[in-house]
């Protein structure tokens, strides 16, 4: 969208800016004293109006040579070339116009007296054209920063929403009620174990509550949250859960979004293990790959399990949060593969900045 042509008010304002320029050009034309003031004005007014429109074309050459993505030589060539062509055409038009004025009889000999002013007109044209180019670049920069700000706002709103959703999903009613039911069972049969489970559950809940306020946490912390979660689930499912973890020690201090992996492990339990009579494995594989952190959560599952009674908001949520935080630098995929279900994610490994 052309910044000036897109709105009639902007165009009028732009033409208004050209009024003092017109006055200036007229003044310059009288400087050598060969042209009278009236002649200068009659020459300058239509010529400047014409050039005002010629300069509008500069926007398009700015658009194709953005400052941050083009080399200096390309930028200089594009705009100096543009200035020469625009001014050249303008000068030709000026010559033709002065001839026309002379021939009309109203200003006899004006064309001859105008001729020596042509170089000055050319220089003025080039400067005005380049000035318009500078204006367009400033405008583009301004728009870009406004865009970037809007994008950042949107990303942070999304991240906040995702966090809230994650937290809501966190204190998953299913998980909570089933755990309480397990405790209820244990109070008579095994009071020791019941107390232990109360403590495990309390530990897990306290950790999740603390995490909501942080934008990132060390992977280590996320892992210990997962361990707290699994400790509770292991009381409920007993030997049905077999957890296998392979974690690259280099990954432990990578900063990750809080509650990013825990929902994936929770999914593996509720959609995988819970549907298997004999239970099954969950594999967590974390590696540093170049500058990225690569994570896979796999679980055994029954392809013939009863249909889910809960929609899989967990996975969508994780995808959104990754996207909001890392944009296109993160990848996320999930797919069933025979009797196993695999979720894979990769994102830039950011490490904690040491406080000075």
């Amino acid at each position, binding site marked *: 969208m052309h910044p000036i042509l897109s709105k009639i008010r902007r165009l009028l304002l732009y033409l208004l800016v050209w009024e003092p320029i017109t006055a200036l050009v007229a003044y310059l034309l009288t400087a050598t004293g060969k042209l009278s003031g009236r002649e200068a004005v009659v020459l300058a007014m239509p010529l400047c109006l014409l050039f005002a429109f010629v300069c509008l074309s500069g926007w398009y050459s700015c658009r194709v040579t953005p400052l941050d993505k083009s080399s200096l030589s390309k930028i200089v060539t594009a705009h100096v070339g543009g200035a020469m062509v625009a001014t050249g055409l303008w000068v030709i038009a000026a010559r033709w116009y002065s001839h026309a004025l002379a021939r009309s009889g109203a200003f006899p000999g004006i064309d001859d007296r105008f001729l020596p002013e042509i170089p000055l007109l050319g220089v003025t044209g080039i400067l005005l054209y380049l000035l318009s180019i500078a204006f367009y670049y400033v405008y583009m920069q301004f728009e870009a920063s406004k865009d970037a700000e809007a994008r950042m706002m949107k990303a942070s709103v999304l991240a906040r929403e995702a966090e809230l959703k994650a937290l809501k999903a966190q204190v998953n*009613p*299913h998980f909570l009620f089933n755990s309480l039911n397990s405790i209820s069972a244990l109070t008579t049969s095994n009071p020791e174990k019941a107390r232990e489970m109360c403590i495990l559950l309390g530990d897990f809940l306290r950790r999740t509550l603390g995490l909501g306020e942080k934008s990132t946490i060390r992977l280590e912390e996320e892992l210990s949250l997962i361990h707290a979660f699994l400790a509770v689930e292991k009381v*409920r499912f007993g030997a049905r859960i077999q957890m296998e973890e392979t974690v690259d020690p280099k990954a432990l201090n990578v900063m990750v979004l809080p509650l990013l992996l825990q929902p994936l492990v929770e999914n593996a339990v509720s959609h995988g293990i819970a549907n298997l009579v004999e239970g099954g494995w969950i594999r967590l594989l974390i590696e540093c790959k170049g500058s990225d952190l690569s994570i896979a959560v796999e679980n055994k599952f*029954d392809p013939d399990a009863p*249909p889910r009674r809960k929609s899989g908001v967990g996975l969508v949520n994780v995808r959104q949060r990754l996207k909001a935080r890392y944009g296109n630098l993160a990848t996320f995929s999930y797919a069933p593969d025979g009797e196993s279900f695999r979720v894979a994610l990769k994102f830039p490994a950011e490490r904690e900045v040491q406080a000075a």
Partner: protein
Amino acid sequence: MSAPAGETKKIRTIIVDDEDLARQVLREFITKHAEIEIIAECANGFEAVKAVMELKPDLLFLDIQMPKLDGFEVLELIGNETAVIFVTAYDSYAIKAFGVHAVDYLLKPYGADRFNGALERAKERLSGKAGKNSQELPLPTDLSASARAPLQHLDRIAVRDGTKVFIIPVAKLDYAEAQDDYVALASEGKKHLKQQTISSLEQALDPARFLRVHRSYIVNLEKVVRVEPYAKDSHVAVLSSGSQIPVSRSGYSRLREILDK
């Protein structure tokens, strides 16, 4: 079946839950009632259906989320003979469905009061008033239909032959045919009977994939190869399996509308 006076007959009960501890709670509460006898414990839906068919219990405590078959699928397969008390942790749609159909249910964790209350209601149902009360009981298929999340269509159908359970993914269903109180489900060259009305099946299936082409028939649109005129005013749909399904006049215009798109 009325027991001779003086001799109290025990209530034969099966408990179904995939979690050890959850079964343990039930067992603990049940053993406080001498009139109840646990005759079996099951950890998944298949076992539950088999046990109910073989043992014909009076009462069933049934978890909803289980491996293999969920609680509603179990209910659909065992009919209305057994009194069922659902036991579940949290499932907003299911709880709403229970409320609407006045089914006994326990929400985990539950205490002795709530357990005893549900048990009393089940006993009333089992006692002399059983005949009258079972009339009030919802059809299992209606109950499970209203426990589905809105806009969620059936993607598999559980059927039973004796004590054996078969799962038919709806993609493999060729057509369904009404037969009195049953529907016959044709899939992969076999026919399975299920106690359900064709209308309730129609409502549970995705209308974009299944069409009621006749008072007694629903077809899987993906399986329709062509439609041929049959007699005056009537047509047949020829399926990829070779089956020919009668199509009524109104069914024909609906079918045309979809196939012409």
